[in-house]
């Protein structure tokens, strides 16, 4: 079963990963750029979390601030991606979605900077 699984996923043009990447290249560039930002905020948060797990929570407020900044950024980017995806039928225009994204970042990062210490 394992061999079959690996073969299905990795091997050939019909492998899951190959299909994924070929289909992924077809989506609009904007969405791929947003996906990069999503990955960036995700891994930044993971590295901070690993650090806290290794050395402790001091200073806790700074950790929370950094971690929540990553989480919040991830969420806002995800929301922007949902709104910009042509497959979803949102009534807001791209510019409006971007403006909302910028405003939410303003408010969110005011709290982050305040909490950072």
């Amino acid at each position: 079963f394992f061999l079959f699984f690996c073969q299905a996923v990795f091997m050939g043009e019909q492998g899951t990963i190959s299909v994924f990447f070929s289909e992924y290249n077809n989506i609009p560039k904007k969405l791929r750029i947003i996906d990069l930002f999503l990955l960036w905020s995700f891994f930044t948060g993971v590295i901070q979390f690993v650090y806290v797990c290794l050395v402790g929570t001091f200073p806790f407020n700074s950790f929370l601030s950094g971690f929540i900044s990553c989480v919040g950024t991830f969420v806002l980017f995800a929301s922007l991606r949902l709104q910009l995806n042509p497959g979803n039928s949102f009534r807001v225009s791209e510019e409006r979605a971007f403006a909302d994204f910028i405003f939410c970042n303003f408010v969110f990062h005011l709290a982050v900077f305040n909490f950072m210490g």
Partner: protein
Amino acid sequence: QIYFFIVCLSIVGLSYGFPSSTFTQGNSLRNILKEYQPINIEEVFYVVQALDNLSSEPSSKSSHCDLATQTLNEASDLASIYHAVYVSETLGCAKNANQKVAGKLLNLKPELTSTEDLFYATAAAFKLKDKKHLSFTSSQFSPILSVLSDRVSVDGSVKDTADERSGTLYHSGLAFQIAALLKSSDLTQDQKFTLEIFEENIEGLLELYTETEEGLMYIDNSDSRTAFRTTESFITGSFELLDDTDIFTEESILENVAEHILLNCPFSNLRDVYHFSKLINLMIKEKEPSIVVSLPNTTFSATDKSSGNIAVLVTDLLGNPISNVKVFLMKATSFADDSVVYSNQQLNSVSNKEFSFNFFTGKPSQGYYFLDIGVQVGGDTIKQTTRTIKVVTSVSVASVSIDVLDSADKEVTQSHNVVPGKKFGHFKTSYFYSLNLHFSVKDDASKQLTRVQQATIRFSGRTTEGSFAIEFQEDSSYKSLLDVKEIGRDLWYISGDYDVSLIIGDPFIDNSFVWELGTVTFNFPPYLKVAEQENVYATRNEIEHTFRVPDKRPSETVSLGFSAGVLVPSVFLLISLLTIGISIKFPSGLGFIYSLLFLATIGGVFFTYSGFWFGHFNMFETLGKLLFVGPLSFLFGYLALKAKSNTRLAEHEKVKQE
């Protein structure tokens, strides 16, 4: 006839306030005044006049006369003229008033002169006139009355000047003295009316006294430093103006003032000494001089039969005897039960000022007694005053018996008896027993059993002590059954030896005592012993502060390593963006400018956040800056995105058309 006389005594005796002490410091006061070196004419005036009031003379008359003459030659102001005139006239070295003095005194403008200066001028002028050193018509000073009349305030007191809000008793007294000097002059109707107003106002102003601990004084503006001056000025002025001074007698004003000033002789202040001497002089020389009724001794011991003679001294204010005086004991009342012990007894004359009465003929019991003493001078009405005496006695306790009983069946297991001067033998008792105390207190005067206020038994141990009151019984003895359990509660159930004492005390016995009866050992169950109470005054242990343990921190290498690690995703992001190939397209025209401005305002917002984080701004300043940058960001963002949107829609249309 005798009964009628006695009834009259009891009816007509008027209640009165006689001073209770005499002025005995006359000689010391004279010596102080004679030795005093005055430095100006005012102080010379006080020294000379005070000595004159005390019937004495200063030692250095010539220097005082020279100073007075020099002052009159200068005639600089009315106050110094007044002082110099009185000094020279009293010492007998006065001459006719010179032109300067006459000019100052006789050419007054009353409406422009204060009440005090008006008094100085009037008194000095009339003094000179009296001694024939200045001649003028009295009516020259009459207009002063009209001016004073304008200075009367609502309560009847007189102001110093018309501008002041209210008058004072001091200036009222000065005004009354001026009015008294002008009374016999030719006055207009208005001026006579002013005199009547002044006389009527005196009765109301007399009620403005201030009660002191000893009597009363007149005080202006709550300033007790000028009490002597105000009192003397006001009383002198009232006395000189009024024809009928009975109001002072009726209200006991002079007696109460005398009571205060005799007990508060102002040795330290020269001006007050002058006013004090003037008051004493007035009280002695008035038609009804003050009578002092004093009791040299107010406590009498009933056990000493010979000490029952109450001596009453009846003198004038200076301690001199008063002739033709009779003294009566109108009534002696017990404070305890208001019973009348004596009434209508005439005191025996021992000397020209001492009268006595044997208070113990009626065998009074101990306590306070109010004596209503009546004094009759010649054939005058009897005037009464009240004095308080205290009768004390001695007591003794013949013996004290202590029985030790079993608390359960009340069986007597031990019996001890102790007489004065002895102690009972040391005995032991324990928790399950009771002590039955019994004794009597005898009044040594009446030989009767009596009751005292404090009859207490005390047990004193090494660290604890307990006192218990003994109950007074119907048979006039003292008896108490003390359970050792109750005794132990006060002694914290600490077993050991305790000294037993009997305490007898009362305010009306003169031999209160503590009698050490002996020693008793109490045995209490150990489990009842109360732990020693913490001594609140003992030193406590030093408090050692435990500070918060700092949190564990990683090494610098690890922290820096992770700081670099956090940046790694950013590097990958940058590389990935370049790989994908991002294209930054700005709208054309104004849209380009708006886009740049939009980006600038976004940068401004995050710059403000950074400034807050670095501590350059506080939250309020940050919000203030955001209030400026934020709307700009919105505006430029809207414009930029609108331009972008238009561009996008235009391209979309173009593609559609193609």
